[in-house]
């Protein structure tokens, strides 16, 4: 049985609003080919398990992985799909290696948001008899969550806008980001309202792309790379399905997932022990909410922490130095991208968006379902 699991390779496409030039299988192969080249691994000799991450309705195909078994190396062997956020592929792949069954696992998440309509796809997440006929989607649900969070903790629109300003400025330094720029709080607060209090610039844009990652047992990791990034802790947790059963300003599921991951990683004080965080900012206010759920600050204190500059790329605890999802990452790929960006920080290979401080421990967070129903936390570290 493997004692430890490491990330040994990462490849990401450039995220772009519309990849009309590739089918989704071809887009997936871009990152699979790149990560195999980077690690020098061969699909048939080295990769003993493959896990993909995508979504049937987004892909427009039932069992959306059956069409890409060729590119992902699933032909006449094992391949499984996680129909959840990409971060859960890391969770599932790690468990497979820890079980001793596999030694080298390829993970790949892909989505082309350009091929359909997010509001329609997300409406299908709602219960058909109950709130689906309101036309509810993730954005409208998020607006309720944002309002509740702002009301309960006195978080201001200016504090939330600071998240957008920071992340889009960070994204300028990230070559795979789809959008970036120098915006002011005033720019954000004058961008068109979509579902108040959420404005256009508060929403991660529709984009196309894929991310691949290779996980390996400790023995294999040492043979493959000099800069393995260890998966120190993992945790997942579901909250209630119905929004009406949840306290939308609460972060119960994330606290549970984080507690699990921190226990495994031996983290007692996340504020001191975590050097950098990549969290799922599908909507700007969520970065603040998830920072609190991860215990990076007190409940209700994330807005002030962002205002203080502590989460800037040069700050005391940088959050989303990559530009986060607001920089443009496709849904379903969100979490694998969060883990990939956190791992690049640990490796010291994040390039222009590498944080100034030395990174020993990074945390990545992904979530699935409206208002973060399912939460996944991955703690990464050096030796």
């Amino acid at each position, binding site marked *: 049985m493997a004692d430890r699991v490491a990330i040994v390779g990462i490849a990401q496409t450039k995220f772009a609003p519309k*990849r*009309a*030039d*590739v*089918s*989704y*299988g*071809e*887009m997936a*192969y871009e990152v699979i*080919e790149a990560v195999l080249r980077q690690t020098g691994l061969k*699909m*048939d000799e080295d990769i003993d398990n493959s896990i993909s991450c995508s979504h049937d*309705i987004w892909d*427009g195909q039932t069992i959306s992985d059956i069409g890409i*078994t*060729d*590119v992902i*190396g699933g*032909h*006449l062997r094992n391949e499984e799909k996680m129909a959840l956020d990409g971060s859960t592929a890391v969770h599932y792949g790690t468990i497979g290696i820890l079980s001793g069954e596999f030694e080298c696992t390829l993970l790949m998440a892909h989505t*082309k948001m*350009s*091929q*359909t*309509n997010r509001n*329609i*796809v997300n409406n*299908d997440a709602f219960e*058909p*008899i109950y709130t*689906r*006929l309101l036309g509810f989607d993730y954005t409208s649900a998020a607006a309720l969550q944002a309002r509740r969070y702002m009301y309960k903790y006195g978080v201001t629109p200016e504090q939330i806008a600071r998240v957008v300003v920071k992340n889009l400025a960070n994204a300028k330094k990230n070559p795979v980001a789809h959008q970036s720029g120098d915006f002011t709080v005033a720019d954000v607060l004058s961008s068109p309202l979509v579902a108040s209090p959420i404005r256009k610039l508060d929403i991660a844009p529709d984009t196309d792309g894929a991310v691949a990652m290779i996980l390996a047992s400790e023995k294999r990791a040492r043979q493959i790379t000099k800069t393995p990034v260890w998966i120190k802790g993992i945790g997942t947790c579901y909250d209630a399905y119905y929004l009406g059963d949840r306290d939308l300003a609460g972060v119960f599921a994330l606290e549970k997932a984080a507690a699990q991951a921190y226990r495994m990683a031996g983290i007692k004080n996340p504020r001191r022990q975590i050097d950098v965080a990549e969290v799922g900012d599908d909507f700007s206010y969520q970065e603040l909410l998830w920072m609190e759920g991860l215990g990076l600050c007190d409940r209700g204190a994330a807005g002030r922490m962002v205002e203080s500059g502590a989460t800037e790329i040069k700050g005391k605890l940088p959050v989303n130095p990559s530009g986060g999802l607001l920089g443009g990452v496709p849904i379903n790929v969100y979490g694998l991208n969060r883990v990939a960006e956190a791992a690049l920080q640990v490796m010291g290979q994040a390039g222009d968006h590498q944080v100034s401080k030395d990174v020993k421990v990074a945390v990545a967070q992904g979530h699935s379902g409206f208002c973060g129903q399912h939460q996944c936390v991955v703690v990464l570290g050096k030796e």
Partner: protein
Amino acid sequence: MVQKEQEWISIPMTVDVPYRFAAGQYLTKYLVEMRDNGKIFAVKCPRCKRVQLPPRIVCAECHVKNEEWVELAQEGTLVAFTIMYLPLTDPTTGKPHEPPFVYGSVRLDGATSVLDHFVNVEPDMEKVWVGMRMRLVLRPKEQRTGDLSDILYYEPLPGQVRPK
């Protein structure tokens, strides 16, 4: 006392999701060759040499990139068929195919894969059989649209007699 009948509610709903699928590098070339030049192209794996339809980026068996294109003959052999009695829907038009009709799997000469399409033959077990030689019939050039409907159907080569 009259027993009231239990009522059960169910809600009708059409889940209508519009898509536009990118054909990508390999199928775009295939569709353009068929539309503009009336040719059928497949890819050949550099390792196992299987000639694959539809053209695709990777040979699943060898996990190597397919880069060689080969033009196929437009005649081949029927390897399987079915006479359909269900009015299956064409998702690009929303209209049903009128039954009975015949679906056939034909291995075009030179190909490893088979290509499934309609067969223009009477839906009669006496008139269609495995092993029958077929020819691909494309739409007239000016009517082609750059999708699989540019193939009208397979049609049996003339003068064939059902084997005993």
